[in-house]
């Protein structure tokens, strides 16, 4: 991450404040999805494993509704060419990734607070493990979503393609994140969760490396 990527992040941040391109759709999705889950549960008490699963379901679909904007908005407005003329591909990917990381963390902090307040089963017994799962899960989500957004931004049916393409790529991350979240609810130690933590860290590293290698080819016509 260098100063140029940070400048691109600032540009996107200012643009987002003025256009509310991603934030509005993210906020609406989080509110609607959480409300639907609450209504469907009614007075039932759901298990901790179901709570952990529903938590990541909302995170996954919220990410699908907002994170593609980083590249899709540039493509739809026709400003991709402008970006190509002012920055190297690695700078563009870093800047967009930084923007998505900030967006995904803000979004998921809100989701976590909503779940803590509204779901009885959302009781974290090992906070450090939950934070680790939250951090690595969100980082992986942001990295994978950014490169997939770059790929689908050049395609025709962007809206449909994004979740379809994301699902198989994000599945290992989501499953591991659900497992780690559940372990944090059960109060498992880091030693007990070391296998899941190793998977999620490896996923992030592999995805980040592959994304930087791939982006050059995706970005150029």
């Amino acid at each position, binding site marked *: 991450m260098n100063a*140029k990527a940070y*400048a691109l992040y*600032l540009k996107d941040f200012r643009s987002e404040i003025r256009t509310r391109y991603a934030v509005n759709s993210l906020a609406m999705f989080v509110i609607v999805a959480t409300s639907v889950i609450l209504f469907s549960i009614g007075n039932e008490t759901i298990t901790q494993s179901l709570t952990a699963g529903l938590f990541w379901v909302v995170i996954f679909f919220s990410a699908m509704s907002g994170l593609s904007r980083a590249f899709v908005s540039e493509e739809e*407005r026709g400003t991709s060419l*402008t970006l*190509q*003329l002012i920055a*190297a591909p690695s700078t563009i990917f870093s*800047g967009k990734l930084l923007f998505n990381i900030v967006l995904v963390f803000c979004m998921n902090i809100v989701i976590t607070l909503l779940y803590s307040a509204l779901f009885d089963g959302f009781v974290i017994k090992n906070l450090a493990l939950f934070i680790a799962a939250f951090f690595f899960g969100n980082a992986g989500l942001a990295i994978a979503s950014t490169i997939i957004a770059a790929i689908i931004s050049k395609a025709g049916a962007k809206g449909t393609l994004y979740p379809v393409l994301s699902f198989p790529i994000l599945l290992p991350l989501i499953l591991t994140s659900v497992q780690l979240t559940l372990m944090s609810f059960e109060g498992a130690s880091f030693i007990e969760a070391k296998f899941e933590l190793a998977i999620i860290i490896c996923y992030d590293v592999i995805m980040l490396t592959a994304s930087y290698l791939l982006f050059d080819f995706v970005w150029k016509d």
Partner: protein
Amino acid sequence: MNNYFLHVKNISKFFGRRLIFKDMTFEINNNGIIGISGDNGSGKSTLVKIIAGITSPSSGEIVHQDRGKEIIPEKLHNYIGFVSPYLVLYEEFSAYENLSFFSNIRGIKLNIERADFLLEKLLLFKRKDDLVKTYSSGMKQRLKFIFALIHNPSLIILDEPTSNLDSSGKDTVYQLVENESKSNIIIIASNEQSDLNLCQREIKLQDFKLS
């Protein structure tokens, strides 16, 4: 004095199975204005995009050199200024904000003196703090010239540079282009005779090759 050298080596371009041009080779090593002309669909815009490094050729190679050293693709954008009707600037920002963001993303400090000079020259100074979405198409086209020239590029590529411009806008642009051509290489892709009249050398695209 510009020490820029551009060598286009045997480039061909296909879109799917459709051939745009084949085995194109030429060199540009002197400052001045070079025109690229040809019928609609002959590949003028594709050729300038390939030269600018935005599009990849199907085969062949483009070599850019500055002071005898080859420029790596990662750094090429620092040497190139580009204007075209399909270039879009950020409409939610003002002209000044656009220029400031572009400079920061390039990793250079905005040269306020040069920005003001170009804004003044292209009659946008009074509107520099207005959002680009409030500009007319001609004003947006003039702003693209500032975008292309603000970082003092050695190779300036102008694809249909005078589209959307009125006659006074065209005169200003021609004057600017002639001034820049003293120290830089300028490539103009156009079918407008008044644009091509500025050129010291013309490359014609016809029947998938140079004529």
